[in-house]
């Protein structure tokens, strides 16, 4: 039967070439399209994680929902010692966030002032790279303030301007100081740039009475795909029911939802494309089967069962699909691999999409063998489904009826 299928493929060239070409084209484009879609999502995610949010963040329960000094983390150094021994944790840093009033000579604005360890922060965010004016915090525990560019505009301050701060210390006492603007940053995320300012923790802890305290601990992981596993390890190691260990999926839930919606629309688009491909292959198979009805009648008359005919048609589509996929899948995989290693550069993309947190013009394609495997599986499945109607059509005829078909 396999031999006859092979002969049929070589004999009915029009149908074979069409099926081969469509399968090749759909496999290649599906792999590249999904690689591009996943790549852009990965890029958004990595960009977002680079800006400020961590792969994992550790909070006292209630801090994210209610906030305030009642939900600060205590004994941070001890917790950091535990984190050092957890496999998959590449780095961590604690941040002390507080909300207060920043004022220049004439203007005031509510702002989030964050005490950070400037040296460690470099591994955790793009704050240093987002510098546009002045200097990043130098780690010398001084009163230098690193201000978002849009917040600086609101306050009408320049480098070396004095900015007063009024807020509440960790013990709910009144905290006030004068900071000096030493640098300005711009991440592109307007909300962030217009409401955030950073200061060295060495200095800030003295003002806020927040030594060995933090709003949360920001954790980086060696492999983002293991984030859920590492989250569980941290939760188990800290062994404190008052703590919650959250991954980026929770921390950036709205972005995750947006990516899901984008994926759904992406798959709807590709599905429409596949519907067209599916029907074209099916129509060509049907036309071919119709034109061979007498031949099928002969085969049935001389002793082939309808199951044999189904096997014959299955082999035909299997051989054509396999040949096309064998050529298209490695090609698609290579394109995905190449552009994964050498991302596509879209000049100005970061500027256009800065509100989405894109901080790079690079768009790498995702290269994932499992994804490629299911892409190939879908194409196979569609090709096999496309032959069902022609099979049903042929088997509706009795051998004699098929023999008489002209």
């Amino acid at each position: 039967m396999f031999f006859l299928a092979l002969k049929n493929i070589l004999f009915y060239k029009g149908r074979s070439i069409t099926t081969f070409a469509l399968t090749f084209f759909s496999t290649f484009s599906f792999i590249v399209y999904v690689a591009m879609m996943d790549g852009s999502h990965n890029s958004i995610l990595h960009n977002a994680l680079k800006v400020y949010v961590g792969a994992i963040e550790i909070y006292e329960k209630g801090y994210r929902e209610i906030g305030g000094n009642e939900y600060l983390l205590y004994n941070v150094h001890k917790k950091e010692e535990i984190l050092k021994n957890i496999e998959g944790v590449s780095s961590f840093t604690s941040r002390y966030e507080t909300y207060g009033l920043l004022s220049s000579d004439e203007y005031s604005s509510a702002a989030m002032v964050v005490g950070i360890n400037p040296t460690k922060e470099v591994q955790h965010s793009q704050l240093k790279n987002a510098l546009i004016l002045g200097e990043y915090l130098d780690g010398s525990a001084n009163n230098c303030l690193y201000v978002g560019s849009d917040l600086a505009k609101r306050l009408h301050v320049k480098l070396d301007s004095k900015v007063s701060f009024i807020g509440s210390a960790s013990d709910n006492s009144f905290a006030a100081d004068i900071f000096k603007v030493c640098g300005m940053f711009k991440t592109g995320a307007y909300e962030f740039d217009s409401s955030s300012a950073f200061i060295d923790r060495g200095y800030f802890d003295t003002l806020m009475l927040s030594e060995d305290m933090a709003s949360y601990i920001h954790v980086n992981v060696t492999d983002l795909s293991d984030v859920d596993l590492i989250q569980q390890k941290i939760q188990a190691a800290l062994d404190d029911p008052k703590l919650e260990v959250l991954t980026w999926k929770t921390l950036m839930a709205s972005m995750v939802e947006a990516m899901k919606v984008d994926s759904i629309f992406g798959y709807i688009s590709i599905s429409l494309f596949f519907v067209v491909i599916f029907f074209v292959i099916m129509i060509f198979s049907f036309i071919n089967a119709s034109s061979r009805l007498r031949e099928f009648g002969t085969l049935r008359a001389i002793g082939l069962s309808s199951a044999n005919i189904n096997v014959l048609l299955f082999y035909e589509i299997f051989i054509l699909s396999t040949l096309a996929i064998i050529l298209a899948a490695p090609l698609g995989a290579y394109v995905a691999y190449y552009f994964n290693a050498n991302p596509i550069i879209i000049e100005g993309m970061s500027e256009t999409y800065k509100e989405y947190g894109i901080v790079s013009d690079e768009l790498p394609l995702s290269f994932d063998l499992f994804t490629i495997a299911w892409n190939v599986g879908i194409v196979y499945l569609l090709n096999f489904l496309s032959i069902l109607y022609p099979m049903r059509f042929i088997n509706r005829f009795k051998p004699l009826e098929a023999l008489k078909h002209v």
Partner: protein
Amino acid sequence: MIRLQNVNKYYYRGEEREVHALKEINLEIKKGEFSLLSGPSGCGKTTLLNAIGALDSIDSGEIYLDDMEISSLSEDARTRLRLNEMGFVFQAYNLIPVLNVEENIGFIMKLRGFDEDVIKARVQELASLLEIDTKLSSLPSTLSGGQQQRVAVARAVAPKPKIILADEPTANLDSKNSKTLMDMMRSLNEKEGISVLFASHDEYVMRYVRRIIEMNDGAIVAK
């Protein structure tokens, strides 16, 4: 070898029986017979041939191949029966267009699981006998009608079935090719001992067969 008892077949149009195509057919065809169903067009020759070949159903009666009643078999069993016990020669040759002559002749043997060596030897033997040995690698579309019909005969004969059913095998052939084909079929019948039943009103066929079963209006009028 083949025995028909009170076989009736009707063609229906809607709910009503439109045509009584086979009327109380009682017939016996013995092993090695070279016989012909003869009669005017529409008399039921092909219908009877198809019923014997398990290609068509009957409405009543029984058809036996040896001692096996075949008209009541399932579709799958009838398919196996056609494959293992019968050979068919059609008016329009009905060769597999994608297979060359050698592959066409050996096709049924291959389906039945004969060894490649046995198939090859049998194909060579029949091709020589039917004088198509120079065309073994040709596709059917490149052959003349006479050559195609000889390939069809070789395909039917190759696995040595119990009976060959040939429906108007000479209808598309000129007199020379008809004569050649009948010479060859008779020679095969004598050499291989395979029963052959023709349905035809061709005089060449009538001249060659040893028994003529005459039909008229769905009934056998002379055996």
